[in-house]
């Protein structure tokens, strides 16, 4: 399992190297007095990504990342908790412009608390709402940061 992940990480880095590398020819080649132009840094960085990617892949295939003991390998990850937290963050992102910041953030609060093991969603909703509302007022009314509203400056 760990090995598959490590190979995956190495491949991700190599993929990034490819994305950045293939973008280089599309950039202007002019170099001016410096002898290097807008292509130089992207080319260097994609080579750097490729080199570390290959080295990571070699380590992953030959006994795993060096200096890394996977102490968490035996810990069963709490996938359900992570799903709740993810749902909270993604729902907030999806709903913020539709139901306004206050409600979306309250929902985020409830979901994350649920993910971390809270079993009283109603109480969390109340706490979340009471936390979010004054923050919304502070941002919307004092700092003039435009957070999405449901009705007006108050909600």
């Amino acid at each position, binding site marked *: 399992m760990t090995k598959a992940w490590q190979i995956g990480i190495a491949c991700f880095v190599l993929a990034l190297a490819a994305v950045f590398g293939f973008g280089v020819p599309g950039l202007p080649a002019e170099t001016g007095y*410096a*002898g290097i132009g807008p292509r130089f840094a992207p080319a260097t960085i994609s080579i750097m990504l490729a080199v570390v990617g290959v080295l990571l892949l070699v380590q992953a295939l030959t006994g795993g990342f060096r200096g*890394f003991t996977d102490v968490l390998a035996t810990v069963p*990850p709490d996938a359900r908790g992570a799903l709740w937290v993810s749902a909270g963050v993604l729902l907030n992102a999806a709903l*913020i412009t539709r139901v306004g910041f206050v409600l979306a953030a309250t929902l985020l609060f409830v979901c994350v608390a649920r993910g971390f*093991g809270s079993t009283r969603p109603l109480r969390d909703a109340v706490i979340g709402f009471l936390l979010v509302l004054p923050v919304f007022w502070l941002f919307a009314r004092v700092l003039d940061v435009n957070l*999405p509203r449901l009705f007006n400056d108050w909600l």
Partner: protein
Amino acid sequence: MIETWNFLLAGFATALQPANLMWAFIGCLLGTAIGVLPGIGPALTVAMLLPVTAKVDPSGALIMLCGVFYGAAYGGSTTSILMNTPGESSSIMTTLEGNLMAKNGRAGPALATSAIGSFVAGTIGVILLSLFAPLVADLALKFGPAEFFSLMVLAFVTVSAVLGASMLRGMTSLALGLAIGLVGMDAIAGIPRYTGGVPELIDGIEFVLVAVGLFAVGEALFNVLYQPKDPGSRNKLTSIWMTKEDWRRSWPAWLRGTAIGFPFGSIPAGGAEIPTFLSYSTERKLSKHPEDFSSSGGQGAIEGVAGPEAANNACSAGALVPLLTLGIPTSATAAVLIGAFQNYNIQPGPLLFQTSGELVWALIASLYIGNVMLLILNLPMVGLWARLLTIPRPQLYAGILVFASIGVYGMRQSAFDLFLMYAIGVIGVVMRRFDFPVAPVIIGMILGPMAEKQLRNALSISQGDWLVFFKQPIAATFMLLTIAVLFVPMVLRKKGVALSEDD
């Protein structure tokens, strides 16, 4: 000398204005709070507070943000001593002896020695900062692009190679950060790169987004996945009075900690990990009571708390030297602070003391004031802070993520950014899981475009001659140091020292 004194007095005049005092106080308050709370660190907090820069004047906002940076170094010890988990990674060493003292009914003196030690070290650190910063700035005025570029290369290498268990993984993080930094307009020719035709990406990817994604979302997801749900036991708070013996054993440790912390803060070695570790091992070696240390099964040695805490704070002050005079961040938090300056179109660097002298000296003066505030906040009021630790984890992380989403959304009112924040958070979890350091990502992303600009300018001046980096003495020195630094981790690892990063 006299000149510095006058500037400093003028700085105090600005810093003592009621509004600025209030900002300093808010910063110290927030800094202590997030220092105490696990799961939220100074880099994240400063990043989330950046929207404030849209509305508040530069001196007020920067005074506050520096207060956060500074206060976090104070608050971290409370968590280390009362719970067996460090509030910040730089407090790991404090946890060893501090928590042991607390278990044996001496939580009060442990908290007192760390608060007073932080004050002593912080104050000495700021004095050194006031003395050295103008000198370094003067020296740095002679720097051209070649010197700056080689200095930045040194910073890249130290930050990614010295920290963590693996140079390769550090370099991977750095490469990721540099790659993210490429997205957007190129600094010299103004050519958009890697924007994929998305107009929002022309300005680049906001580092706040990346910092919040990695530190808030990544941290929350990692904790929900892998941490046990029941909180550890808490130690009882006892009277904070230190005995005569405690004082006698503490003060040399404070001074030694300061002497170790300040220089380490001022070089780009990635935060307070190394100096706190060095201070701890120094105290253990020099102590007349080695039997008290945890390694000998003792009851907790007060030197082992006093030294690292002093080192931690001196390091924070030291980090401001390269930040203000060279514009080089030495930790993730410092990198985010540079972002705050840039929001005001102020570029930290040697010219800062000339172009924004008033602001810089007000900032430095406010650090003196902040130290006093923090001593008061952390000594008599430590009981109040300890109560923050009673916030249950579900509501704590829920609150952190709510604030994280405000910080990200508030930047440019884009729901797309919130999705991107989640995606970066997922990358953050994988990085945490497989021990990739996070700080090089942030530093690479902020420093990368600056380094490219310096490189291209340097080569323009030298007409494309790459040897310029080795011909000029200062640049050559930095380059040689860079090569030397590459060998440091090998030496450290041989001695069995494992370092982790400071976020």
